[in-house]
């Protein structure tokens, strides 16, 4: 991490939390000093359970719970106002995590590859591999482009068994809800943070039949904003 060692004060050697002598700042280490740097799954499950309960309170419809805004146009995405109004929603709870995670994970990359993703594909690979590995300890199970030619702006990240949904059974009358909307919010945060505004939604595609291998299979549908597609097409030509 040679780029981190250069002290700013002229000639004066600084050593401290910000610029330690070995070049590893506090941002390079997980806060958790345990060997595998893992957290308790049970604690997370209880915490997330309460987050879902909190998000479910005083909500008229399931659509509200999952999505920050029903408005498909991105022009109305006034970031803070909308988010504060609808703060009790899962997607919103995940969004700031995605924004910060993008910074943190890029910062931890070796100096040579410390660049922000510049194309849709590199961005989605970054999410599928780095973000997933950091959050869930494994890479996502799939990454696909929508096969529908009329929707070139849609990509799918697939997780066979989302960690957040491990202990959750959604009742039948709320079957449209997928609590991995929280993870969708994180993805959306990463996309927004790297200047690829997108709307990300979580959909359950697992079949509920007996003997089904992945009943909790979830698709995260990433729909990029029109301007992203426009820029992407220019990049492709150049």
């Amino acid at each position, binding site marked *: 991490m040679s780029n981190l060692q250069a002290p700013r004060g002229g000639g004066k050697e600084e050593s401290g939390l910000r610029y330690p002598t070995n070049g590893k700042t506090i941002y390079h280490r997980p806060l958790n000093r345990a060997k595998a740097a893992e957290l308790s799954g049970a604690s997370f*499950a209880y915490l997330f*359970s309460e987050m*879902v309960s909190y998000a479910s309170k005083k909500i008229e419809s399931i659509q509200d719970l999952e999505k920050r805004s029903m408005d498909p146009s991105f022009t109305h995405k006034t970031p803070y106002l909308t988010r504060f109004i609808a703060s009790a929603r899962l997607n919103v709870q995940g969004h700031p995590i995605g924004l910060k995670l993008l910074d943190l994970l890029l910062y931890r990359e070796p100096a040579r590859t410390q660049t922000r993703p510049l194309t849709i594909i590199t961005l989605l690979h970054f999410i599928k591999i780095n973000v997933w590995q950091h959050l869930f300890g494994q890479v996502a199970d799939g990454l696909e482009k929508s096969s529908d030619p009329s929707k070139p702006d849609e990509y799918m990240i697939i997780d066979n068994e989302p960690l957040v949904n491990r*202990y*959750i*059974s*959604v009742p039948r009358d709320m079957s449209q809800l997928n*609590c991995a909307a929280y993870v969708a919010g994180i993805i959306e945060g990463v996309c927004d943070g790297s200047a690829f505004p997108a709307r990300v939604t979580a959909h359950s595609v697992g079949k509920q039949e*007996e003997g089904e291998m992945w*009943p909790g299979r979830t698709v995260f549908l990433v729909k990029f904003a029109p301007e992203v597609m426009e820029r992407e097409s220019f990049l492709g030509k150049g």
Partner: protein
Amino acid sequence: MWSVAGGRERVAMSENRGILALIVINKAGGLIYNRTFGDGLNQLNTNDYLVLAGTFHGVHAITTRLSPLKQQQAASITADGIPSRPDPPSGLEVLESENFRLQCFNTLTGTKFLLFTDNLQANVDVAMRKVYDLYADYVTKNPFYQLEMPIRCDTFDRKLNSYIREINNAR
């Protein structure tokens, strides 16, 4: 005709072995879960199950008071210096009959798990512990489950079924 019917019955008997049924009773004596494992088992109707749960709850409460031995009231001090309270009387734990065995596990919060097995089933304690684990994971960590209410959790059903099938097939 007689022998055919008898033979069929015996086949049915030998197919159903191991763990036969599970009932969960909440701390107020209400039935919150009941399931049978295997085909051709006797089924009670819903009302009977509710009565059964309530009755068992009462009988269990009575059995906690039946011990003729005096309870040790003095708090004992363990090796690390923390005083420990003696365990409360456990009440009914096992009920055996000619055809089946009923194991009862009473959690600290008063939820009762009743596991019906055949007489030869070994390691019921292990199975009970696993069922309790599944309950703790897939029921209490589910944000849509309200405590003391009937358990309707698909993942719990799925995991329970696959675990019981595993045990019953292993024999």
